[in-house]
């Protein structure tokens, strides 16, 4: 059996894309939202007033006091210092590398647990986009494998859809359902192709030491921390001495560190805090530039003497951290960040339209019964593509509607997110296909449109009250709601589809000849409804 190169690439593109498409759609949407992680977190903790000036030295000492009482024998503390946009002390600590990480948020003025509502905020979306809310190792492996397959799908897709460059600007919405979806897939895929290739590749690079650890294992005899020290990514951390010791006050060290580096101080890490050989590491924000490199200074926990600092790095480290930097786009100002966001949405749209295209290209003929696989794919498409927005909107609404003092509130928000998503996935299985699309997209739209209203009613903070803090977030929710309403409207106009022509069921979408317009000028707008109905 001989197949042409392009046909085998088309097969690879179709099936690799289908297998990982559902997961990748969720990864793209939540990852794209992560460009606004800080803003989402801010919105989800409306009790906090951003912008209050907070002294980081005092905050570090308050954090250390809390942790000395709570976890004196921990292996490590990780203290996130309050920032203007996030006026909270965020604490993580771990007993050892096996037991789960502990977490607390403190009020930076009092050092007591914060009164702000308990929520994971934007961090949930951030972690979901590479861990899928699974145990970290499992989630990272699954997302990593999906990202690797995405690279395969991207490269084989460039070969399969060979007309993408000839049809660079083409989006024929009204020729036929298949033509429209194919064009949508190609346009969103090709216009943002540099972004798609970059984000898939850099995403894998970010976790490369996890996916292919053997180089580090071989070169450093399994001593992975040594690798990070030698690469210039972190200063050296001492092994515990095994006997107890006192920890110096953090405030003078914070002041000394801040005098040395001009970037804002973000974190203070304390390793083996109860030990005589404790190490304190001050971690700063990245310097201006593409590279994701945090300057760090290490201090002796018992004496406060400086132990070492990260300095200039060699080219390999610089390049790999620049990849991470490109992925996160922390360097981007508001306008460029909006373009990254747009590119991320185009990635999600390319995946979603590819999934729909798979099913549209395999519509049963008028006298055929749709097979089980076909129905399953269509139902999963609804569940994945329309279900996720419903889940997201439910997550935001839950943040406003659950009682502020509810125990386990943050977990309940997450459960509501998954519950709403699962409900739509179930509806996708039970309802007629087109109706399932229309209803779930319509529901998502209503929920998103409700967010600013519910937020204004429950917090009393709204623009008409002179409260402009959440104007941007509210506008984004309204825009998302309107976009989904448009999608629901379009889904409602679609007719139940059957393949009319005796098309070859094995034909790949990309191999359909592009119809050239006849010599007569089209009467575009007048011809639309008929063209659509006949399609």
């Amino acid at each position, binding site marked *: 059996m001989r197949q042409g190169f392009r046909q085998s690439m088309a097969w690879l593109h179709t099936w690799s894309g289908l297998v990982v498409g559902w997961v990748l759609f969720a990864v793209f949407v939540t990852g794209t939202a992560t460009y606004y992680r800080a803003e989402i977190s801010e919105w989800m903790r409306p009790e906090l007033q951003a912008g209050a000036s907070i002294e980081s030295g005092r905050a570090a000492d308050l954090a250390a006091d809390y942790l000395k009482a709570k976890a004196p024998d921990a292996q490590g503390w990780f203290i996130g210092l309050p920032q203007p946009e996030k006026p909270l002390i965020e604490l993580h600590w771990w007993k050892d590398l096996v037991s789960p990480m502990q977490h607390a948020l403190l009020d930076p003025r009092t050092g007591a647990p914060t009164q702000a509502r308990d929520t994971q905020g934007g961090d949930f979306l951030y972690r979901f986009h590479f861990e899928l809310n699974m145990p970290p190792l499992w989630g990272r492996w699954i997302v990593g494998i999906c990202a690797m397959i995405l690279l395969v799908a991207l490269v084989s897709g460039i070969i399969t859809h060979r007309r993408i460059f000839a049809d660079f600007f083409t989006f024929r919405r009204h020729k036929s359902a298949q033509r429209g979806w194919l064009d949508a897939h190609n346009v969103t895929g090709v*216009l943002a192709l540099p972004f798609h290739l970059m984000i898939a590749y850099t995403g894998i690079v970010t976790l490369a030491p996890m996916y292919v650890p053997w180089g580090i294992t071989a070169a450093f005899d399994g001593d992975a921390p040594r690798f990070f020290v030698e690469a210039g990514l972190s200063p050296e951390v001492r092994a515990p001495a095994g006997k107890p010791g006192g920890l110096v006050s953090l405030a003078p060290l914070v002041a000394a560190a801040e005098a040395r580096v001009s970037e804002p101080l973000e974190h203070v890490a304390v390793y083996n805090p109860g030990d005589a050989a404790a190490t304190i590491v001050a971690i700063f924000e990245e310097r201006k*530039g593409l590279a994701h490199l945090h300057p760090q200074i290490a201090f002796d926990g018992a004496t406060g003497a400086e132990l070492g600092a990260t300095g200039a790095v060699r080219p390999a480290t610089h390049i790999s951290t620049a990849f991470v930097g490109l992925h996160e786009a922390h360097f981007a100002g508001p306008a460029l960040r909006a373009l990254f966001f747009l590119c991320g949405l185009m990635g999600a749209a390319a995946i979603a339209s590819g999934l729909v295209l798979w099913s549209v290209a395999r519509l049963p003929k008028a006298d055929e019964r749709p097979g089980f696989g076909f129905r399953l794919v269509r139902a999963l498409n609804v569940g994945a593509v329309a279900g996720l927005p419903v889940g997201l909107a439910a997550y935001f609404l839950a943040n406003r509607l659950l009682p502020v003092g509810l125990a386990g509130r943050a977990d309940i928000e997450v459960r509501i997110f998954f519950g709403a998503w699962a409900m739509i996935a179930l509806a996708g299985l039970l309802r007629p296909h087109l109706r399932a699309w229309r209803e779930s997209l319509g529901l998502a739209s209503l929920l998103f449109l409700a967010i600013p209203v519910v937020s204004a009613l429950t917090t009393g903070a709204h623009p008409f009250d002179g409260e402009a803090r959440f104007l941007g977030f509210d506008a984004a929710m309204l825009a998302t709601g309107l976009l989904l309403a448009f999608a629901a409207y379009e889904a409602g106009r679609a007719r139940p589809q059957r393949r009319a022509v005796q098309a070859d069921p094995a034909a790949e979408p990309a191999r359909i000849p592009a119809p050239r317009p006849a010599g007569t*000028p089209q009467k575009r707008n007048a011809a639309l409804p008929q063209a659509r109905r006949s399609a």
Partner: protein
Amino acid sequence: MTPIVLALNLALSFAGLAALALSLDRHHRDAFLTRAPTNRARSLRWTGWGAILLSLAASIALDGWNFGPVQWIGALTGAALLVVALLSYRPGWLRPAALAALPLALLALPFALRG
């Protein structure tokens, strides 16, 4: 990395990509109901590539080799999406929009140089 440099980039890439799109028969017909005459298609193509290269040069000159190319590709993507949307929904608007974008880019240039 100032918004004004990005605006300059967007305007230049939009004008350039619009010219390139109109140099293709199919899209020329969408916008003007006729094929593009050969010499017109050629000059549109030159203008298009010229504006895109100018946009690259401007972003590198103003934002350096680190951010310039990132900025340029981002602007190209955004502008291209706008061209496609206009061609699909309002093809008649493409030419006036592109013609309006060019003077906007020229207007942004002195501000970008000063900032």
